């Protein structure tokens, strides 16, 4: 009898019975010169398109919606954006119910997207793309692509960028309501793409004063009301995409990729200064003036995983650490154009901040990005951190992650599932079992380059090696997404 592992790993077998929807395939035909992960997404979106179950059976207790966000518009006429991070956000909803899955997707109707559309070309600025001369840029939300992550707040969905306001999205039809003003006097304050939701429901986030060594701190109730806020003085004007939060501490890892000049586009204002090392600022949740700074060797990162405190005061957090910045101006451009990249590889790393004021990295040689944990463990001790990693065979073309992994820090082992050469694996999201506190599933979207289709796989989170328990295939490929959130029904 064929195991589910070998069945799914034989990619051709997996899709043998899956007829492609030719009409939908036409959507991306015009972009055939672009790498599949970076083609223009569907301008008119999808509305509850059924996905085909190509393997296994859905767990009966798994009901809800996996929302995901990521840049999805890279080309207008003869223009190609200068950076992956600058594409307009496409919100996708994978709805799982009754053993079936369907897929909806809609672009966030941002001010940026509207102005670009009206101009018939990209005119608005981004992380790696300069503004066209004279483009109307009155504040950060004019440039807000709302393309990076999502946050569920009560019965709404917020599409997040990192340097402007959240965009309010209807979780049912994915329509855009507009930028969220969290408080009148805090309009247009940056709200990063990596809010941390504590088990008690409190939402913590930061926003950088790009170019200056300050951050704004947000503490929101579970209903989105501002209950804490303040300006935090940082040890350097570092670029920080993600941070970490424990039960009592807010942790700002400041890599030596530092804003040194005002040179549009934004990424060109950053300078890599490894001689300065990486400093970690730790602030008390209850008292923003209670600060400690730890010093670590240089490293570059986009993402942290989870953070927690040990009884003796030691603080630990996962970080996908590279020896130098990845996806800088050159790489962010090359990845859209299908060029060969010589990217620095981020590796799964544990940062350890000790009570005596010293700190160290516990390195591994395992490549990793998009680390996530069981949301019930946010800020608490975890042993399993889930991520993407590189499998046995990868290419140097852009995005190299084709394997999903659980790193177990307690046992020092990895549980992996390698989808093979023609599959790109996106950030895994943990969906807790509705009533078993130690159980859950890992939801893993993939983009199949050979079959030109986006798929969604569900794993038993405690056993990735045996492969998905169910896999669904969409009728068409969507560009790669960054981050998502599980919303249980």
């Amino acid at each position: 009898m064929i195991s589910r592992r070998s069945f799914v790993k034989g990619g051709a077998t997996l899709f043998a019975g899956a007829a492609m929807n030719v009409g939908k395939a036409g959507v991306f035909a015009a972009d055939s010169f672009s790498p599949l992960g970076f083609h223009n997404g569907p301008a008119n979106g999808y509305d509850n398109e059924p996905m085909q179950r190509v393997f296994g059976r859905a767990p009966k207790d798994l009901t809800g919606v996996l929302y995901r966000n990521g840049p999805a518009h890279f080309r207008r006429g003869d223009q190609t954006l200068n950076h992956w991070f600058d594409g307009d956000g496409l919100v996708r909803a994978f709805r799982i119910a009754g053993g079936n899955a369907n897929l909806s997707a809609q672009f966030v109707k941002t001010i940026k997207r509207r102005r670009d559309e009206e101009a018939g070309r990209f005119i608005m600025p981004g992380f790696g793309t300069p503004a066209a001369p004279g483009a109307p840029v009155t504040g950060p939300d004019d440039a807000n692509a709302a393309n990076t992550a999502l946050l569920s707040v009560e019965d709404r969905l917020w599409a997040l960028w990192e340097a402007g306001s959240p965009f309010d999205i209807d979780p049912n039809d994915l329509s855009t309501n507009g930028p969220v003003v969290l408080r009148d006097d805090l309009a247009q304050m940056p709200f990063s793409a990596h809010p941390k939701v504590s088990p008690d429901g409190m939402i913590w986030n930061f926003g950088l004063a790009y170019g200056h060594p300050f951050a704004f701190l947000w503490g929101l109730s579970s209903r989105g009301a501002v209950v804490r806020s303040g300006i935090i003085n940082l040890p350097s004007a570092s670029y920080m995409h993600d941070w970490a939060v424990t039960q009592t501490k807010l942790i700002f890892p400041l890599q030596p990729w530092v804003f040194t000049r005002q040179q549009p586009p934004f990424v060109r204002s950053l300078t890599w200064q490894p001689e300065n090392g990486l400093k970690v600022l730790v602030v008390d949740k209850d008292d923003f003036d209670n600060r400690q700074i730890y010093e670590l060797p240089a490293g570059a990162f986009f993402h942290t995983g989870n953070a927690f405190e040990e009884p003796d005061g030691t603080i630990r957090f996962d970080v996908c650490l590279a020896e130098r910045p990845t996806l800088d101006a050159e790489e962010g451009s090359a990845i859209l154009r299908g060029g060969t990249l010589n990217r620095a590889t981020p590796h799964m790393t544990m940062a350890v901040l000790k009570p005596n004021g010293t700190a160290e990295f516990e390195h591994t040689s395992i490549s990793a990005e998009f680390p996530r944990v069981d949301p019930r463990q946010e800020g608490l001790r975890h042993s399993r951190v889930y991520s993407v990693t590189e499998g046995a065979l990868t290419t140097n073309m852009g995005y190299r992650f084709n394997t999903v992994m659980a790193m177990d820090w307690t046992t020092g082992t990895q549980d992996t599932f390698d989808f093979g050469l023609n599959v790109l694996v996106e950030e895994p999201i943990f969906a807790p079992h509705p009533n078993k506190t130690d159980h859950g599933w890992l939801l893993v979207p993939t983009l199949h380059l050979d079959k030109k289709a986006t798929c969604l796989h569900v794993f038993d989170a405690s056993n990735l090696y045996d492969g998905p328990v169910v896999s669904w295939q969409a009728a068409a490929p969507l560009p790669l997404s960054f981050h998502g959130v599980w919303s249980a029904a």
Partner: protein
Amino acid sequence: MVRKIFDRHLSKTIAIAGAVLFASGSVAEPPGAFQNGAGTSTPMATLTFNIEVIKAQGAVMIALFDSAPAYGGKGQPVRATRVPAEKLEMTTSFEGLKPGTYAVKAYHDLDGDGQLSVNPFGLPIEPFAFSNGAQAHYGPPSFDKAALTIGAGETQDTLRFAK
């Protein structure tokens, strides 16, 4: 303390995402600038502004400049006025101007505190507008972009406050 250090930066510009720069307090004017001035020059030209706001609330504050340095903050406006925003559309006129080149910086003082409100990073959070339909681009448009060259008689322009 943190706030104090931060304030120093507010006097410059602050970078937003993607090096989006916006001069803080771009329409803030010296105290007293927004008093209705009595015309002291020979009445030769009139500049009338049609004002469009999206909320009938507070007042629209308009400062009229006759030179790039003054417009850029190195001088006083030649005229300034406060127009209560009681409706969505209003007009106001500056009469008795010398024919020449002028530009306007204006903001909609929604909360009526007589200042352009900014967020903690120094970014304007009340609507603003410039003459000649000029738009902000990482800060206020240049004097040249906002400039209106007027001769004798009446010239009309529109100040549209978008958000």
